């Protein structure tokens, strides 16, 4: 029983990591909170749903289409929503992405209605039974493993490529990065593009287990905020640990005190903020523009 709870918690956490990592990346690099992140995830769900219902494409394969489309969507979002508000007061930045979030919700409502839609893959209802007490849903394992693989690719990209290192450099010291010849605005664009691709991917991986509807993103962005602030805003290892913690908390309380399922991680979140205001892996001052 305990093992079963732990396993489903970790499996859930894997997808939460992917949903949150884009948020932390965008914040870490461009110091902009993307309130439309949940809606990007919702659009990822819809795209995967339509690819499935029109072309009968399995959600796992559809990621090959989701990645480029959502990267492009992210760069457009940077160019038309974020860049014009970069030098504006913070409140304006909040309203820019918050406004986009509301726009996208209503656009989805207009285009696809308020129906709940989901994808039933051939393995949706299959579960692997390991012992009499433990059985694991195949679609959750698929989502978890795919998330981890994508995460691994992302980390290797950040560590090994010039653009990846430049992304880290900009998040650590923006003006020093400028002095090293890094075009900071282009790096912002890449970061927002990658962040949105991660959110779209998370949507694609979540659709076999969750329903797509116009406000589907709202609950995920709340979870993502908890994950990101818990781990330390702007920190990728923080998002990984935060994602697993929130997944575990949700699955533990879901069994023992189901009525407190969502309250539980907010309570934990408040406690962590009281003890460590910068989050578990947070760097002091990470929220300040350009750090120094």
């Amino acid at each position, binding site marked *: 029983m305990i093992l079963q709870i732990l396993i489903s918690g970790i499996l859930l956490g894997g997808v939460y990591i992917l949903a949150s990592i884009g948020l932390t990346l965008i914040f870490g690099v461009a110091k902009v909170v993307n309130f439309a992140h949940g809606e990007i995830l919702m659009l990822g769900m819809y795209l995967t749903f339509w690819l499935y219902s029109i072309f009968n494409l399995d959600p796992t394969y559809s990621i090959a289409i989701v990645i480029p489309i959502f990267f492009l969507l992210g760069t457009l979002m940077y160019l038309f929503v974020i860049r014009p508000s970069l030098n504006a007061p913070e409140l304006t930045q909040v309203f820019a992405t918050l406004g986009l979030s509301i726009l996208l919700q209503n656009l989805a409502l207009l285009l696809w209605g308020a129906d709940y839609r989901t994808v039933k893959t051939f393995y949706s209802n299959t579960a692997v039974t390991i012992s009499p007490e433990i059985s694991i849903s195949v679609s959750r394992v698929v989502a978890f493993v795919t998330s981890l693989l994508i995460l691994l690719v992302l980390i290797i990209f950040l560590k090994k490529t*010039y653009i990846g*290192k*430049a992304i*880290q*450099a900009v998040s*650590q*010291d923006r*003006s*020093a*990065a*400028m*002095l*090293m*010849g*890094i*075009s*900071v605005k282009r790096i912002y664009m890449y970061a927002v593009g990658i962040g949105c691709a991660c959110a779209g991917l998370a949507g694609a991986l979540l659709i076999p287990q969750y329903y797509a509807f116009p406000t589907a993103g709202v609950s995920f962005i709340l979870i993502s905020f908890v994950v990101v602030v818990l781990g330390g805003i702007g920190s990728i290892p923080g998002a990984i640990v935060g994602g697993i913690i929130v997944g575990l908390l949700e699955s533990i309380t879901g069994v023992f005190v189901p009525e407190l399922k969502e309250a539980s991680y907010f309570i934990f979140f408040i406690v962590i903020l009281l003890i460590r205001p910068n989050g578990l892996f947070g*760097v002091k001052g990470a929220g300040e523009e350009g750090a120094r």
Partner: protein
Amino acid sequence: MLDIKNIDVFYGDVQVLFDVSLQVRPGEIVALVGANAAGKSTTLKTISGLLKPKAGEILFHEKNIHTLDSDKIVEKGIIQVPEGRRLFPRLSVEANLELGSYPKRARAKAQDNLKNMYEIFPQLYDRRHQLTGSLSGGEQQMCAIARGLMSMPEVLMVDETSLGLSPLLVKHTIRTIKEINELGTTILLIDQNVNYALRIAHRAYVLENGRIVMQGEGNSLLEDPYLRKAYLGI
């Protein structure tokens, strides 16, 4: 080669540079000296494109650069080693050096240059996998200079070469800068330590309250009674 002509620079409404002109010729070491808040760092920031002059112009090889973004200026061959080193603290020494070769002009030769840097600064090779936040002040200064050189600059600008270093390390840094210059890189350096700066500079400019008040050869400025009184306390 680098020609700053009558620039006025403001922070918001406050003017910090008044009609500043200076020239750097190929192969020179030029020092820009002056007290704290005289406008030395502002001058370098303006050359690097972080600040834009309200009046005047900056020419590099007879072409305007003061309208370009900072990354384009680096691409032309002018790099700054900023005050306080400004290394990326949560990246390794090697990753910091590799980021120095981010400009396209230097990427192809990044591996060769990395090897050269480790030859010039062997202690950086020993610490190449360490995060730069854990280095000593002297090592950080070496790392910052090496990172600047990785971009294969024509002009290396060093802001506050000696700040926060022990006298021994200052001597070492100054010697390194001289060696780099002898290998063919033109240098524009800033230092509060007027004595050190004037000793290695071919030519120097003295900045006071945002205005160039003196200029001349390094050695002859060291003999100047006004300068000795004002900056060396002799």
